[in-house]
């Protein structure tokens, strides 16, 4: 680079033009309380959601806390093994480290009784026929192969029921969204519930919050 004048002592030193530092990280993953409880359910072929109190959102899979309430989620609720596709993506890209055969359809699926979509594979239907609102059901591995992992569900497939056109897509309110400016007016913090004060939320819009 012309702007830099090297001192004479460095004149014959080979310049560094690239530094490659392969990284490797071996670790033991401890699932923690919430995930452990969820995965124990999976070994029974049950999908167990968790909630902070009997009226609050049901999280699947739970991370141990309800971010809206800032509270732990000790209550366990079994949710359905059928749900609705809230959105999806068809992946056509092969990349380093991926073990997936392409193309594959990964979908966000809102299980009946849950309030957050999980991401999983859609199979047994051509990719170009997958749609938002489509009803799908879990397909489990053979019983002998069930392990404490969400991979024990091989994929989801269409149930054949009519589409749920009114599926609750997280964040959507009356066809707009939490981060929309309606009539040129910005939303406020009170659009969502303040976990500290309990104020705010979307109840006035017909949401469950």
């Amino acid at each position, binding site marked *: *680079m012309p702007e830099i004048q090297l001192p004479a002592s460095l004149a014959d030193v080979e310049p560094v033009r690239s530094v490659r530092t392969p990284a490797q990280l071996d670790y033991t993953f401890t699932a923690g309380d919430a995930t452990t409880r969820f995965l124990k359910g999976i070994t029974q072929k049950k999908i167990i959601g968790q909630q902070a109190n009997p009226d609050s959102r049901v999280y699947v899979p739970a991370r141990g806390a309800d971010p809206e309430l800032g509270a732990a989620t000790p209550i366990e609720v079994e949710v359905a093994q059928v749900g609705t596709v809230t959105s999806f993506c068809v992946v056509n890209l092969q990349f380093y480290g991926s073990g997936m055969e392409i193309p594959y359809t990964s979908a966000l699926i809102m299980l009946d009784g849950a309030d957050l979509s999980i991401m999983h594979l859609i199979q047994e239907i051509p990719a170009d026929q997958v749609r938002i609102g489509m009803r799908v059901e879990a397909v489990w591995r053979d019983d002998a192969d069930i392990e404490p992992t969400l991979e024990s569900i091989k994929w989801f497939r269409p149930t054949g029921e009519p589409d749920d056109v009114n599926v609750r*897509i997280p964040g959507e309110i009356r066809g707009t969204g939490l981060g*929309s400016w309606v009539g040129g007016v910005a939303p406020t913090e009170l659009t*969502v519930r303040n976990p500290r004060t309990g104020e705010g939320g979307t109840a006035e819009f017909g949401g469950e919050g």
Partner: protein
Amino acid sequence: MGKERVAVVGIGQTKHEATRGDVSVAGLLREAAGRALADAEMTWSEIDAVVIGKAPDFFEGVMMPELFLADALGCTGKPMFRVHTAGSVGGSTAIVASQLISAGIHEKVLTVAFEKQSESEAMWALSLPIPFTPPLHAGAGGYFAPHVRSYIRRAKAPDHIGMLVALKDRQNGLKNPYAHLHEHDITFDSIKDSMMLWDPIRYAETCPSSDGACALVLGSEKVADEAAAQGRQPAWIQGTAMRSEPTLSAERDTVLPLGGALCAADVYKQAGITNPRKDVDAVEMYVPFSWFEPMWLENLGFAEPGEGWKMTEDGVTALDGDLPVNMSGGVLCTNPIGASGMLRFGEAAMQVRGTAGDHQVDSVRKAVGHAYGGGSQFFAMWVVGKDKP
């Protein structure tokens, strides 16, 4: 914002390329920082403090690179800060730097952000297998594609909007000598015919992987007044804001995140903007996948719900439109991830200073710089103007 006024008085960036095989990370940073200092007519020794930002360390596989970069940035023995907010980091880094001056601590601060993607594997780093979970993650595109699909459905947007954005930004990039991609032969049809990578996102609607860095010299009111007296227009920082929100909340809009709208509302209030569509002259926003232009137009208050795509279709966001968006060619032409946010903030400042060259928009008095990161969960914005706040 603190009490003291702050302005951008120097801007520098590298030539961005897929592989900058001629310089190390340290050399890349010096190239950008040296240009920013030259632009500010300052020397390294005049700088009081350095604020540096980059995306996850796992990209290049170097933990806390700021430690070994201190020498190259001339800040041995000076205060140095590292900022990290995923893809929005270039914006947050500039804001943290500005706060060191607005709080009255320093007069002259150098801020730098970078990524050397040729020495990293971002697609892999963003798709690490999560224990006990199917290995479905396919990089940022795989994460954002379902949200783009939700937007298209919600806004009832026609399919060609994403392609129009890609065409506009790539054509703008032809006017920017620093841009990574210079696709002279690009057409609407070549975009349409490009491979569908993460349906509904095509290859030609996707940002490249770039090596590059951006640097800004920020000065106090006294420093900026001196620059102005010598005929160098400062870009006065009229407002700065950052917001974040939890990724996995049942009450979260991943398409138009509440945090993004609150960030915009906050920064407009500081800058005295009551009608963003009328009061803002140019916007440089973080659009790594083409459809994010109409999404952010709605999220940042430039359009009513479901109307953002109409601005794109009507040419409002073109370089000669009523509200030019991504004059530099944006992230769709250049994506050194850690630097991408600062490039947005820097372009907004260049427009205000009148130094944007062939991609300069006439008579810009107020410009917005915007960046987002993570799973659309970190937001950083600033408003810069010709006038003192």
